[in-house]
């Protein structure tokens, strides 16, 4: 057993932490209030490797190990939920499938520009108005071969990064007969004629991470934009989501850590009954609960990431890490507000924002309920 980060991981953590503290965290409030994406910070992320976590070095990526990727997303989450979600989705959902299943030509054409920061970001469109957890039966967006092109028609929902991306990997039905081999992934450039990206959804939190409905009105892309194998789209999606779950778990640990630090600070500043509230046992219990849960969640996220890095099965561990960390973050943020009292409910302090940001994490990239199904299947099937 070895619970220490290695030398490179420690340096990476410090470099990302310092970057986030200087460029991301100070803008988090503004990003939330204006719902404007923090391009200024993201444009500086290329050389640091934050835009190419999964992309190989030969395509301008950082190609970091899975634990380092989780560390980076945690640090981003500590700084700003919106920016962290955009970067997590860019890496884990928009870039990872090309890094893993793409051809050399696709990596050169699509992955390299977004991994280096020369281009915009990457996005993945899975969910539809009638298909979320049940992709296999629910996806109706279809792609039909027409000459040397795919003709794509349909609508996707809740697509993170669509308006700030160069391309959207789109899960489409390529076999109308249905079944587990009827779906495929196709890379759709965002400037393709017929692609309509609706205005950003108005959300409870994560307002600086744009989420869109996307409509495909006879969108045409070359046949070579098929990503991976035809008919393997569902399998490729589930593999991608396993990795994405580690990422959302890490992001949640970062959100919880930020709320926790704010609560600890405040508990020293605020006095009641003649002493700082940190001296009251009721507050200490909440601080201790938060510390325990953050520590346990982080350890589980790192374990899932480590298994992934070893090339071993990690579906169960990723589901456990995601479910535990996201639900933990909700509770930690809830109690951070409680510690702040009335001020916690005010936008003057960061904890209400973090609470709103944390709320998505038990829903996106597999709800807590779906994740529990994933976990239970390992024992019952």
């Amino acid at each position, binding site marked *: 057993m070895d619970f220490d980060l290695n030398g490179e991981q*420690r340096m990476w953590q410090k*470099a990302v932490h310092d970057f986030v503290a200087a460029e991301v965290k100070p803008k988090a409030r503004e990003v939330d209030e204006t719902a404007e994406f923090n391009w200024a910070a993201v444009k500086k992320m290329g050389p640091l490797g934050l835009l190419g976590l999964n992309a190989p070095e030969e395509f301008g990526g950082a190609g970091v190990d899975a634990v380092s990727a989780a560390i980076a997303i945690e640090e981003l989450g500590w700084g700003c939920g919106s920016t962290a979600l955009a970067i997590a989705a860019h890496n884990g959902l928009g870039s990872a499938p090309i890094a893993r299943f793409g051809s050399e030509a696709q990596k050169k054409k699509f992955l390299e520009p977004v991994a280096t920061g020369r281009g915009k970001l990457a996005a993945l469109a899975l969910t539809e108005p009638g298909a979320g957890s049940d992709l296999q039966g629910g996806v109706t967006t279809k792609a039909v071969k027409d000459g040397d092109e795919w003709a794509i028609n349909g609508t996707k929902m809740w697509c993170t990064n669509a308006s700030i991306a160069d391309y959207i990997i789109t899960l489409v039905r390529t076999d109308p007969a249905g079944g587990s081999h009827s779906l495929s992934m196709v890379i759709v450039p965002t400037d393709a004629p017929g692609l309509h990206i609706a205005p950003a959804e108005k959300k409870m939190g994560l307002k600086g991470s744009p989420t869109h409905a996307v409509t495909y009105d006879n969108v045409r892309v070359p046949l070579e934009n098929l990503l991976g194998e035809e008919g393997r789209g569902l399998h490729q999606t589930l593999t991608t989501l396993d990795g994405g779950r580690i990422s959302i778990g890490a992001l949640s640990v970062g959100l919880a850590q930020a709320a926790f630090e704010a609560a600890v600070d405040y508990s020293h500043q605020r006095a009641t009954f003649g002493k700082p509230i940190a001296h009251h046992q009721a507050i200490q219990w909440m601080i201790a609960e938060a510390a325990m849960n953050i520590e346990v969640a982080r350890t589980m996220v790192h374990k899932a990431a480590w298994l992934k890095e070893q090339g071993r099965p990690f579906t169960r561990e990723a589901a456990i890490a995601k479910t535990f960390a996201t639900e933990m973050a909700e509770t930690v943020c809830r109690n951070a507000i409680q510690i702040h009292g009335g001020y916690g409910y005010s936008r003057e302090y960061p904890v209400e924002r973090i609470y709103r940001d944390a709320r998505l994490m038990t829903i996106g990239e597999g709800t807590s309920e779906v994740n529990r199904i994933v976990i239970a299947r390992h024992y019952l099937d």
Partner: protein
Amino acid sequence: MKIVACIKQVPDSAAKVVAQDGQVSWGDAPLVINPWDEFAVEAALQQKEAHGGEVIAVSMGGESAKEALKHALAMGCDSAILVSDPALAGVDTQGTAKVLAAAIQKVGGVDLAFFGRQAIDGDAGITPAQTARVLGWPMLGLSAVIKVDGGKVTVERSIEEGRQTVSAEAPAVLSVVKDFGEPRYPSFMGIRKASRADIPAWTLADLGISAPAPVVAWPELMNPPSREVACEFITGGSPAEIAEKLADKIIAEKVL
């Protein structure tokens, strides 16, 4: 061009530095690269990018100073050298200058040596000039704009009266100020290289010099007198009443 960037490891700027039992202590605060030295590294890297060559980061300090050197490597320096010797504990700025000058000479063929304007722990800001003196090189201090043309170095100095343009022939020592421009963040390629780097440690014997005799002594160290700060919450039935109480207090304390 062969460029040296001299850096120092210092306690983090958030550290609480106190005098304790006749020693300066920063508790368990983390040690970092002196923030001013990041500007020196940036300036050195920009010269390399403009004219080619290599940048060598040099630091005098304990084994832990290798971490500060790794930061310089992660920013893009080509190599790093630690000068470390038990005989150097507590050395003053003049002694430091003699050691750094000897290291720069041992590196050999150096055209430019960059320093930050000062270190945030000692805050003396004289080591760069002292090093130039030992080397017998010109000193271009507080540089905000740096241009190298052939063997000639021209800088705009950022001084209290404004900007002053001076030039000198290389080899030269430069100290760099904040106006130069933001230092870059480490890159992932740099971090990868730095984490695997084997940083050599040179002793005084390697430099061929003996421990410099101190010219400055610290007979006593004491903390500045602490300020008593009291916080009082003013309460009242209405905002007007609270404001009135506050105004009375401000007048009574002769704040206004």
